[in-house]
């Protein structure tokens, strides 16, 4: 959890002579300065590639114009106003939330169930299952997108497979609902194993005796899972939920390469629309930056809500 709460319980180095209350203050000062020197390049780079551009993007979002001919808009919030009247933007927000609400919970539950199965000490061929389920993580997003695009082509494998059972071919990428379905299926394929690894790491920290005690008391496997295992996994659930939400709000590659946002804008993600606005046809950096800020605010707000809900039950 320390990834999110910044200062976790940590072993303080009280005994190794690095604290300023030791007599040889000069050396300490020097060591402390050396420490700052060591972390300086990393810190400066993060400021330059993350924080500074973030502020610049906000200023940019208040400007209008093409290319380098940018002026402050009148009113200043013009780009934001325009966003709220932009039907395509609303469509992409809707699409992103469909992915978020349907895909993330299904994926996290599947990941938890798979991790629980793999954590069973009596399971055979454990390494094989783990590798097979984890393997999709090795493939790039655009690579798997193109494999799925090929399999779900009109005359592709999936329709041939369905035809073998006498089913009618489906125009997978040509209809709004089926295009979104294929995209969600792709996300499940690529990310379930990734999240499973987090749950596996979490399960290894759980005392097995709590599970065995529950079984002794007559709880069945499902009850034990929901009442004993899941509550102990809460920090991992919170972490994976925040990561997945963050990732879904920034979804780009699949929308770009798998469905190409289509049909029309029916499966396009917010980041895909941002790219289109900023770098295609008539690039409009100011409008793109405003869109980026909506994504930024959504990421922050949803993470905040999740942290609140996740911590409340403690």
């Amino acid at each position, binding site marked *: *959890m*320390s*990834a999110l709460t910044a*200062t976790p319980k940590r072993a*303080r*180095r009280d*005994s*190794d*002579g*690095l604290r300023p209350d030791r007599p040889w203050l000069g050396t300490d000062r020097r060591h402390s300065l*050396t*420490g*700052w020197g060591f*972390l300086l*390049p*990393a*810190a400066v*780079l*993060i400021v330059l*590639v*993350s*924080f500074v*551009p*973030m502020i*610049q*993007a906000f200023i*940019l979002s208040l400007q209008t114009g093409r290319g380098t001919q940018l002026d402050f808009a009148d009113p200043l919030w013009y780009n934001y106003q325009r966003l709220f009247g932009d039907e395509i933007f609303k469509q992409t927000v809707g699409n992103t939330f469909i992915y978020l609400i349907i895909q993330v919970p299904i994926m996290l539950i599947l990941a938890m169930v798979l991790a629980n*199965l793999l954590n*069973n000490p009596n*399971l055979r061929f454990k390494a094989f*299952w783990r*590798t*097979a*389920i984890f*393997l*999709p993580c*090795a493939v*790039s997003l*655009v*690579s798997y997108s*193109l494999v799925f695009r*090929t399999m779900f082509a009109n005359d*592709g494998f999936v329709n041939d497979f369905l035809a073998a059972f006498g089913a009618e071919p489906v125009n997978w990428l040509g209809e709004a609902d089926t295009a979104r379905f294929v995209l969600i299926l792709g996300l499940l*394929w690529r990310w379930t194993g*990734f999240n499973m*690894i*987090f749950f596996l*790491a979490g399960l290894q920290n759980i005392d097995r005796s709590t599970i065995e005690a529950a079984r002794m008391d007559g709880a069945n496997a499902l009850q034990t899972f929901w009442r004993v295992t899941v509550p102990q996994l809460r920090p991992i659930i919170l*972490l994976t939920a925040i990561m997945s939400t963050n990732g879904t709000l*920034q979804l780009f*590659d699949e929308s770009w390469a798998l469905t190409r946002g289509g049909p029309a804008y029916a499966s396009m993600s*917010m*980041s895909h629309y*941002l790219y289109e606005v*900023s*770098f295609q046809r008539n690039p409009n950096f100011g409008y793109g*930056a405003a869109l*980026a800020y909506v*994504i930024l605010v959504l*990421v922050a707000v949803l993470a905040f809500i999740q942290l609140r809900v996740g911590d409340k039950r403690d």
Partner: protein
Amino acid sequence: MTSVIKRLRGLPGYLFLGIWTIFSLFPLYFMAVSATNSSRDVLASRLVPGAELFTNVAKLFAAQDVAAAMGSSFAIAIGTTVLALFICSIAGFGFEVYHSKGKDVLMGVLLLAMMIPFAATMIPLFQAFAKLGLVNSLFAVIVPSVSTPLLILLFRQSSRSFPSEILEAARMDGLNEFSIFARIYVPTMRATFAAAGVITFMTAWNNYLWPRVILIKNDVQTMPMLIVNLSAGYVTDYGVLMLAVLLASLPTVVVFLALQRSFANGVTGAIK
């Protein structure tokens, strides 16, 4: 008798694992096998290896400069990994071994950067590199990902196990602080370096959006860009496309299979 019942009780679990494994592996099998088939056979759902591999190779190399894209992708992935390992490991070392309150505060601030979506920094980053005349350079592709809060955190967390006795002993021996880092810390933290290296290499190799934005001319492209360009034409040759996707995936799949443990430790390491 009881063992049979036990076996049966495990059956739904095995069934579920089996189904998910098939779902997991099938697209990869489909990709590999289709690389050896003609486009017509791919669409006819031929699921056994064919004899078209060399034809596909010839067509692919005629249509796209695969060697150049492979070269760019390797240069970007290796360059990012080497720089990120150096910058983030020495920072993690600095944060933990020379621990102080001020550094904790700074770490907290840097961690906030993890929550900034790339979308929000992409346009100003593009403008900045354009101003510096670095658009279309591999340097511009690499720089934004060489210092990441996640890697610093990973190194900081594992530095906790770095014994302070060694540090003191090394100082007594007259080693300066950088030598302690280079000659003692780096070899001791080999496992962390492997984990961090694997995730950085794979992320850099697979990255698509930023290279797509900053490499605006078509003469410099990465493997992920190459395969998307290949699929964008009016008629797609699916055999050739699947071969290209296979080539684009092989380096990361090989790294993954060889260093799976390290990869798993890398993605989960920072949470421990």
